[in-house]
């Protein structure tokens, strides 16, 4: 089977070969875009990402990494124009989790579940407030399972910067957690008071 690198190389002479990359990675790119925006925006971003990638394929350097991070890097840059939508999507994500918790029929561990929902709401709220560069790193790491090196490739930054951004983000995102994890049993339904 041809590797992604082979496909890009072949597409320089046979442009139609590039469609193979779409078939391999479109679902990933779409999921990533949708996780950070709305489905409508993701529709556009999916198309735009591959158009830009096709246009830029001659510049792709296989020695610098793989195709998936490259595509996600393009999508990340395109996402910058949808900041407001992105912020709302995180709030919607938290709301959706809360709704699921509250709609559950199970009474067991209700406190824990409610606390987890509140913690998630805190984290997603803080995620939306992170500097854009930090947020890009966090999401590529946590949701796309990219390695530090792949994130560096996707965002065009040094690996050391990835580490420092991730550490900084971890600190900022985690600031709210102890309220929920340590006070859970004592607080009971106290999540309401600690909710963001």
């Amino acid at each position: 089977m041809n590797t992604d690198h082979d496909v890009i190389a072949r597409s320089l002479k046979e442009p139609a070969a590039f469609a193979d990359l779409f078939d391999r990675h479109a679902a990933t790119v779409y999921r990533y875009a949708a996780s950070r925006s709305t489905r409508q925006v993701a529709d556009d971003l999916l198309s735009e990402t591959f158009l830009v990638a096709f246009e830029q394929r001659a510049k792709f350097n296989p020695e610098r990494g793989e195709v998936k991070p490259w595509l996600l890097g393009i999508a990340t840059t395109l996402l910058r124009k949808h900041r407001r939508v992105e912020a709302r999507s995180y709030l919607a994500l938290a709301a959706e989790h809360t709704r699921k918790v509250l709609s559950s029929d199970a009474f067991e561990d209700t406190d824990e579940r409610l606390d987890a929902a509140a913690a998630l709401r805190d984290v997603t709220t803080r995620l939306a407030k992170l500097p854009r560069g930090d947020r890009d790193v966090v999401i590529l790491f946590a949701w796309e399972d990219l390695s530090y090196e792949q994130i560096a490739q996707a965002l065009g930054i040094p690996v050391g910067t990835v580490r420092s951004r991730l550490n900084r983000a971890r600190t900022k995102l985690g600031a709210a957690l102890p309220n929920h994890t340590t006070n859970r049993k004592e607080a009971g339904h106290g999540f309401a008071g600690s909710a963001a």
Partner: protein
Amino acid sequence: MDSLDLLRDARPGDGAASPESMTAARAALMNAIETERQGTTAPARHGARGRRTLATGWRWAIAGATAAAVATALVVSQAVAPAGTPGAPATAAAAQLNAAADRAAATDASLLPGQYRETTITSWQTAWSSYGDGPSAALSNRLRRQIYLPKDPADDWYFRGGPSDLYTAYNAVGRAMIANPEYELSAAELPWKARLFQGPAGVFTRPTIPVISLDLRAPDLALVGDDPQATLNSLREVVRADLAQSSPDSDEHPDASGEAQRDPTESQAPGEGRFSSDEDGLVFNRIWVLLASGTATPAQQSTLFKVLALLPTDRVSTTASEQDGRQITTFDWTGDSDELSTTTISIDSETGLVSRLEQRLRRAQEEVPAGTVMASSEFAYRVLEHAPQGATRAALKMPACDAKGYPPTGYDACGVPEPGGSSFYGE
């Protein structure tokens, strides 16, 4: 629990694209691929021209193509025999092209200051994919575009466009093309999600992709003046420069055996094999693209018809017909018996404007039946008393983001790429 673990657990799960989204995105990509394949550029070797490819893609998307389902009542079918010896102009066709040119010039003069000429272009384009020894698949998609040209081309232009809104996809099963119902989408299910843009003299920056500018003016339009011979000379110069640039790369010019073995589903360039020289075939391609773009004014169409009349070929025939009450003259450029496709330009006899462009397979190619329309565009014109309303002004340059990083009022994009950021912003 680590905050990143918590975030990982909260990963949105409902992220699958709909078949419509996937189809639309793939179709857009295939359009860009087809555009590049129609051209002569290879981005690996021609970086500067490579950057223009997507803009050209838009033009081809605008132009694209058509299998428009308009009932054509053929009342007269008078094929004009190829005239003269090979290399001589087909005089009958040339005379009709010149006559159409005169009518187009008169149509151009009829537009008054303040008025806009609306051109609605409905295109169909079919693209085949074939990977190694695997199965082929075909996708036909419809694109609709509207371009509004003012009396003075230096004034603001308007452009309404959106994604493809109707698709027909085929799977290859054995040697038969089988329509895939999953991708049979009706126009009623997919409303045209077009947006109206306004930009100076046809140059837009796509608000959603600021890195890519949309220049409705095909670069060659600047070469189209009043003098057809001078225009032809200019176009030939451009073509020669392109040929000179690409000729050292022998692998881009397969030999005869390689040509015979190429993917038979590849569409053929419109002018290939139809003219006495490769150079004129490429000139024809450029004229085809200009006409297909919908951005050539009637005066420019007039000049281009005269240029076509000057191109030496004995492989053009004309047919008169009636379509929706309009008299249409159709010019078919057909190569020799080995040529893959027939290229057609239809001109409204009353207005002298292009009414339809088409490329149709002459011979069956593996699973693709003969007669299949590979690409076609249908044109409809209307004069508006004023500019269309409700346009988004597209900027030539991105406006600066505000202190919070948001676009200023009236824009939906902003900013300049960060140095050292994502690399696709380029050079």
